[in-house]
């Protein structure tokens, strides 16, 4: 039936009934398409040939394409049935643990991602670190995954296993037991572990004739001896820089090499915060040979040869304690020659200051100084009433003297009196005093057992080598510098089945408990006196046993030895004095390496690559010489020198370092390892070969000659920063006042907002309307960072923390040479030189500027405007983010970044490995990206990666993200918390943003900073620490004249030199005579141009 409304398409269509509607052609077509058509096809009978064709093709496809030729990896699916309580897969968990270094333990938190430790942080419940940690602790996690670690027990170099060793040990030590340990010796590393001490007692009970030796190449022998001189028994000094108004450092690097530096830095920084109404801060005088971090942070620093420190100590003691101290030096013109000119003037200032601040001053002595200097310092501290206030002591009854200890062992070994030698960690074949000829000694014992992380210099000379478990793999305990006891728990099963010293000793003593946990528990319960499971669990959770610090005492110092000590000092110093060798001798100073420690971290890529804070040298150790010394020897950086000390000599490359005393060469230990690790091979020079047990820290009378050879030394900072002869070097001196703003305390009092006036920013008006969608005040959050230069001491722990957190690769010496290091955060180091005529004098460092530089997260980011593919953009919170997947690597962003904080992955550094030189050049083609299945980087190394952070490939730009993964985590937590609120509560907050509490986000750098110099937070939140820091009068923006509107700002540094501002009253030379003055490199507070 034709529809009635045919032809009436312009008007409305009316249907008489649904049937009528159903009859329209459209509907019929629709119906046909919807059901019957398909069905009719199904009803069609497929012919046989068609069917066979289809089936045949399907079979062929199925067989060829998929199942036939492919072998799927066999996987087993295991139900996660026994899920530990509170464990969610994928959610990282932190465990408290501790790491021992040089006999001092620091409390740490180890973060594990599904059972892999990936990141170490300071334990915030630990009273010493309070959440901060040093570079060694930060880098410790990399040691765990070091592919060069010893992976098995070895017997005479051949692979063996632990049961074989245990069987052998049972037999061998059974016999030893019968001989009550006659002819047995143990050489251990210093340890504060109560369990190890208990085990040692047990050992000596079972083997009473055995001897127990202790050796650390970096030890406190002199301190102990000094305390013995003063108090009659070993004591450890517990200093409190926070309470000291005046600090005098006698060659003491209490902010750097000291094993309690993390705490010292915090306390020292606390004493320098001049932000309250009184605007007061401490004053640090440093007299030192090497340029340490302590010196870099001093208000007055004088380069003095280590041997001449005695003269200074005696002079001060002569005035503070008793004239006797100075008497032997009085008539000595050589001593008088030390105390001349600027040094004399500074010393007078220091003396006045000390006497004016009785009870709130502090004299610290370097570990390398002879015992008598320590004695003088103790006497001075006592005379100044500091004992019990800024310095206290803890008795150390079991403290061994390491040099004597290892010498005694060496003598017995040489005499063939040792049948069984057990070396518990340590590497004496590398780092024992050279005169002991230790490498030859293990062979003289009947059997030697070595426990160590690596099959290293010592291990290869031993009968047995037992691979040691990393501290993250094993149970342990230890005491901090102040005695606070921490527990260490394993985060991961030993990767290579290693054993801890405790477990090895348990076998040696035939202990019925050989399990690390049981041993530590036993000690713990002995320590707290009873099996209190709750306290054990508490301590394990907190990582620290509450109130377990040693009680401090204030022993009376014995003054009677003063005269004798002074006499001894005078004799030693004149014997050692370089002046006695006709003015041609050199002093050599052995110093701990700031990142390699004593060389044990030499195979740790992060610590090799993180630059030395002062020299900025990486991947090497070198002879440090002042520019004047270099001029005298006619050498440049990288020239090879021959150093002769006594009958020993050594060739090593020279590095020029301003601020060293004349005729003094600083030799950082820790390089030139004989161990063939993939990182440490060829890194630096082994200065242990010059170090004898008579002169463990410094020696006079060395000769240095130029050999004519060259060696390539590589730094992360160009030499222009110390080169003032060129226009470039002078220009740096000119721009410093605006980039690194600082003032003397006196100027700060008069001009609190001096930092805002260091550079002249004419205006920030723009020709165009700046369309910045994410300026502070417009988004939900506005993340920002403030770095307090007054607190920062420049230790560089933040660099390593950043590297660990953000999967930053190391690049190797060759690539650092090409300026391709990848650190997202760097610490810039500049020396300020005294002006000389219209130039600068490279031999007179007036101050050091240390400035951490992460990405500034500019609101008006120059990098974003030039990226052609929009790979770097702003996010909703105003972060300048890097979209790695979008980046094609034009590198334009880095060119346009005025702070040069962007880093480019030139090769795939994670896969490539840190080759020291580029081997094979042409042949080193990496086709990874063009193969189907990319080769993986070292699987061990992969375990360390933080799964929250992308592992960047080659050809991609990267940079600091403010640890965006941590921000995201905090935001998720805040949103979850919001979502769980009751509805009524939600309604109330509907129009407000979801608040993230201040402090909920801490980037890795801020987390580990011992000085708490880095503050991060939300600028939207007016009460946040960062918002307050930004409003602070000392706050400034680096390169603000570029109008980039940086989110990272700085707080200007303050210096507190004596006689500030009123140079006239101190005589005409006072200003010149205080060379540590902050602003001597520029004039007054005005802009440099």
């Amino acid at each position: 039936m034709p529809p009635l409304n045919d032809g009436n398409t312009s008007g409305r269509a009316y249907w008489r009934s649904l049937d009528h509607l159903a009859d329209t052609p459209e509907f019929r077509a629709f119906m046909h398409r919807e059901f019957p058509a398909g069905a009719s096809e199904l009803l069609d009978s497929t012919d046989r040939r068609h069917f066979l064709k289809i089936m045949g093709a399907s079979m062929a496809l199925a067989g060829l394409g998929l199942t036939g030729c492919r072998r799927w990896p066999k996987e087993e699916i295991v139900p996660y049935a026994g899920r530990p309580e509170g464990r969610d897969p994928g959610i990282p968990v932190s465990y408290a643990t501790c790491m021992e270094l040089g006999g001092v333990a620091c409390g740490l938190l180890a973060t594990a991602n599904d059972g892999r430790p990936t990141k170490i942080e300071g334990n915030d419940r630990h009273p010493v670190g309070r959440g901060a940690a040093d570079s060694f602790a930060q880098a410790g996690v990399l040691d765990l995954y070091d592919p060069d670690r010893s992976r098995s027990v070895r017997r005479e170099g051949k692979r063996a296993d632990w049961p074989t060793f245990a069987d052998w040990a049972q037999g061998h030590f059974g016999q030893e037991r019968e001989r009550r340990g006659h002819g047995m010796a143990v050489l251990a590393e210093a340890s504060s572990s109560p369990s190890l001490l208990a085990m040692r007692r047990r050992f000596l009970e079972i083997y009473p004739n055995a001897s127990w030796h202790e050796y650390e190449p970096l030890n406190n022998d002199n301190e102990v001896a000094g305390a013995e001189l003063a108090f009659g028994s070993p004591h450890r000094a517990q200093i409190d820089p926070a309470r000291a108004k005046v600090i005098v450092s006698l060659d003491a690097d209490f902010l750097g090499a000291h094993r309690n530096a993390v705490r010292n830095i915090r306390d020292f920084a606390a004493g320098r915060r001049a932000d309250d109404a009184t605007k007061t801060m401490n004053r640090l005088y440093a007299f030192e040979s090497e340029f340490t971090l302590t010196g870099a942070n001093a208000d007055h620093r004088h380069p003095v040869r280590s041997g001449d420190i005695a003269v200074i100590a005696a002079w001060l003691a002569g005035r503070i304690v008793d004239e006797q101290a100075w008497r032997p030096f009085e008539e000595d013109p050589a001593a008088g020659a030390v105390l001349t000119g600027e040094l004399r003037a500074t010393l007078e200032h220091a003396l006045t200051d000390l006497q004016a601040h009785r009870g709130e001053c502090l004299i610290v002595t370097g570990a390398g100084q002879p015992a008598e200097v320590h004695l003088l310092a103790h006497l001075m501290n006592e005379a100044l009433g500091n004992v019990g206030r800024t310095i206290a002591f803890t008795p150390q009854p079991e403290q061994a003297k390491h040099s004597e200890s290892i010498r005694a062992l060496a003598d017995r070994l040489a005499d063939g009196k040792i049948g069984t030698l057990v070396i518990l960690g340590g590497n004496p074949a590398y780092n024992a005093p050279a005169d002991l000829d230790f490498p030859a000694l293990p062979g003289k014992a009947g059997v030697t057992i070595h426990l160590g992380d690596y099959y290293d210099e010592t291990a290869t000379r031993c009968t047995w080598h037992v691979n040691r478990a990393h501290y993250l793999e094993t149970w342990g305990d230890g005491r901090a510098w102040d005695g606070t006891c921490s527990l260490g728990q394993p985060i991961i099963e030993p990767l290579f089945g290693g054993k801890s010293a405790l477990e090895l000793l348990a076998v040696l003593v035939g202990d019925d408990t050989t399990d690390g946990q049981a041993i530590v528990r036993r000690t713990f319960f002995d320590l707290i006196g009873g099996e209190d499971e709750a306290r054990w669990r508490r301590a394990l959770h907190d990582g620290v046993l509450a109130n377990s610090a040693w009680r401090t005492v204030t022993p009376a110092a014995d003054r009677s030895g003063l005269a004798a000590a002074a006499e001894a000092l005078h004799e030693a110093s004149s014997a050692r004095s370089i002046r006695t060798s006709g003015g041609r001798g050199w002093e050599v100073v052995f110093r701990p390496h700031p990142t390699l420690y004593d060389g044990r971290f030499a195979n740790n890529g992060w610590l090799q690559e993180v630059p030395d804070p002062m020299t900025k040298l990486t991947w090497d150790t070198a002879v440090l010489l002042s520019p004047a010394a270099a001029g005298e020897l006619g050498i440049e950086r990288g020239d090879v020198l021959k150093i002769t000390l006594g009958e020993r000599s050594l060739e090593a490359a020279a590095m020029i370092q301003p601020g060293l005393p004349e005729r003094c060469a600083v030799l950082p230990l820790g390089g030139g390892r004989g161990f063939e690790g993939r990182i440490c091979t060829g890194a630096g020079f082994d200065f242990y070969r010059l170090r004898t047990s008579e002169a463990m820290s410094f020696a006079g009378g060395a000769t240095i000659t130029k050999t004519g050879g060259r060696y390539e030394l590589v730094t992360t900072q160009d030499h222009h920063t110390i080169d003032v002869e060129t226009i470039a070097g002078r220009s740096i001196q000119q721009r410093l006042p605006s980039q690194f703003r600082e003032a003397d305390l006196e100027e700060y009092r008069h001009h609190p907002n001096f930092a805002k006036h260091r550079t002249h920013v004419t205006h920030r008006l723009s020709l165009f309307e700046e369309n910045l969608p994410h300026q502070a005040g417009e988004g939900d959050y506005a993340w920002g960072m403030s770095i307090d230069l007054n607190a920062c001491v420049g230790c560089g722990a933040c660099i390593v923390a950043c590297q660990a957190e953000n999967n930053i690769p190391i690049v190797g010496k060759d690539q650092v040479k090409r300026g391709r290091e990848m650190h997202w955060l760097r610490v810039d180091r500049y020396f300020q030189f005294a002006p000389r005529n219209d130039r600068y004098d490279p031999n007179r460092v007036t101050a050091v500027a240390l400035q951490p530089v992460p990405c500034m997260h500019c609101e008006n980011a120059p990098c974003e405007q030039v990226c052609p593919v929009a790979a770097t953009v702003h996010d909703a919170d105003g972060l300048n983010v890097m979209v790695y997947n979008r980046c094609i690597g034009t590198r334009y962003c880095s060119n346009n970044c005025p702070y040069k904080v962007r880093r480019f992955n030139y090769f795939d550094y994670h896969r490539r490995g840190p080759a020291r030189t580029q081997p094979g050049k042409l042949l080193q083609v990496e086709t990874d990206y063009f193969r189907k299945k990319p080769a993986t980087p070292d699987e061990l190394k992969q375990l360390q990666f933080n799964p929250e952070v992308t592992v960047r490939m080659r050809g991609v730009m990267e940079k600091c993200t403010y640890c965006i993964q941590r921000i995201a985590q905090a935001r998720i937590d805040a949103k979850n918390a919001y979502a769980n609120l009751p509805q009524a509560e939600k309604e109330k907050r509907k129009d407000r943003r979801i608040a993230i509490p201040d402090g909920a986000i801490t980037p890795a750098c801020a987390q580990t900073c011992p000085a708490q110099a880095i503050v991060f937070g939300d600028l939207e939140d007016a009460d946040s620490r960062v918002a307050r820091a930004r409003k602070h009068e000392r706050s400034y923006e680096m390169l603000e004249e570029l109008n980039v509107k940086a989110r990272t700002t700085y707080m200007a540094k303050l210096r507190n030199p004596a006689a500030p501002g009123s140079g006239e009253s101190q005589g005409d030379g006072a200003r010149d005579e205080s060379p540590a003055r902050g602003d001597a490199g520029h004039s007054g507070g005005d802009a440099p141009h």
Partner: protein
Amino acid sequence: MSTLTVDNTFEDPTRRAPLVLNHDDFTSVTEEICYVNESPRPPRAWYVSIAISSILASLFGLLILYLILTGVGVWGNMNPVMWGFPIVNFVFWVGIGHAGTLISAILFLFRQKWRTAINRFAEAMTIFAVVCAGTFPGIHVGRVWLAYWLFPIPNQMEMWPQFRSPLLWDVFAVGTYFTVSLLFWYVGMVPDLATLRDRANTKIKAIAYGLFALGWRGSMRHWHRYERAYLLLAALATPLVLSVHSVVSFDFAVSQLPGWHTTIFPPYFVAGAIFGGFAMVVTLAVPARELWGLKNFITMRHLENMNKIILLTGSLVGYAYMMEFFIAWYSGALYEMFAFVNRATGQYAWAYWLMAFCNVAAPQLFWFKRLRTSIPAMFFVAMCVNVGMWFERFVIVITSLSQDFLGSSWGYYTPSWVDIGMLVGSFGLFLTLFLLFIRYLPVIAMAEVKAVMPQADPHGHDGHAEGGEA
């Protein structure tokens, strides 16, 4: 053919200097120019030079392969000098590519008839230089396989490129320039290709030339359309001559790096590009006219004219150098002043003074007519300018990047062997293409040359019998 030569460099206002020498009819012109393509074998020098240059071009290719397989770390680029030789080479080659279109388009619009002898191979040079130039930004990115993200191609990510970036402008500017130059070159070549087609003595030649001659028969309508098209393309290409190097200069001028952030860059770069381009034309023309006997077409007057332009643009560039220093001093800005003083006295001072000598001092020789018309002198100056213009880009890119704001981040750039290999290899590619062009395509625009001969002038003598011949 007459062996008589006439000095056409005289300046006599009463007499127009002849642009084509020793020819009084069109046939001989065709014969002589086509001989370059039709001679049974090219001069031995051609074989030697194409052997060398193609080896270098292959080296270029192999190095690119090595680069892609290994990573851009094979170059000397570093932090802070993230752009090294590749970008220096890019800007250098883009600059070379300027003279061709300038001669073709601007001189055409200004009715400079002497352009006809040199425009064809100057345009060819442009195309090949832009090919070399275009290679570098393409391979210099960290992930070459994603370089196509620079183009606004619709994609599943719904991402546009970032239009604020001068690098993106480069993509468009160079892309447009290349396209228009290629079209211009090709359109201009059609009548000459038809000539070669008509004279072809092998089937392959006939087909190949025939294909590209687009069925040109030389009818009035063809000529009419052709001249229209040529004029339009000239008008289109003219602004491009100015725009492309201006845009390339924005890569630097738009950034905020001291030494880059300079408003003088666009005109300075264009002047420099013309300067460098003409020097390259002279460099190529001198041996080419010698080897293929084209002295009757590329006469001393042509060379002298080009040398005058070199003198002019060289002086402009010298002025720009001075002005940069003046503005840096006048700005009073610490970083600006340093950037320029450091250029002249710092770690790369040798490069700066080499550049200043080559680009500013050497062309001053051309004030003297004797030197302007002396083949050795002009070859020397042209080579100086080639070196100098490369170093100009080196100075701009490297010295500015190596020492910018924060002294801690300064560095010293050293090229790697791959950098040097690629620079040399790009010359290989350029010369290979150029030598192939000389051999297989009409090297001088025959049709146009004929049009500027006195015989083509209907008011002159009656010798335009072959005027319609193409």
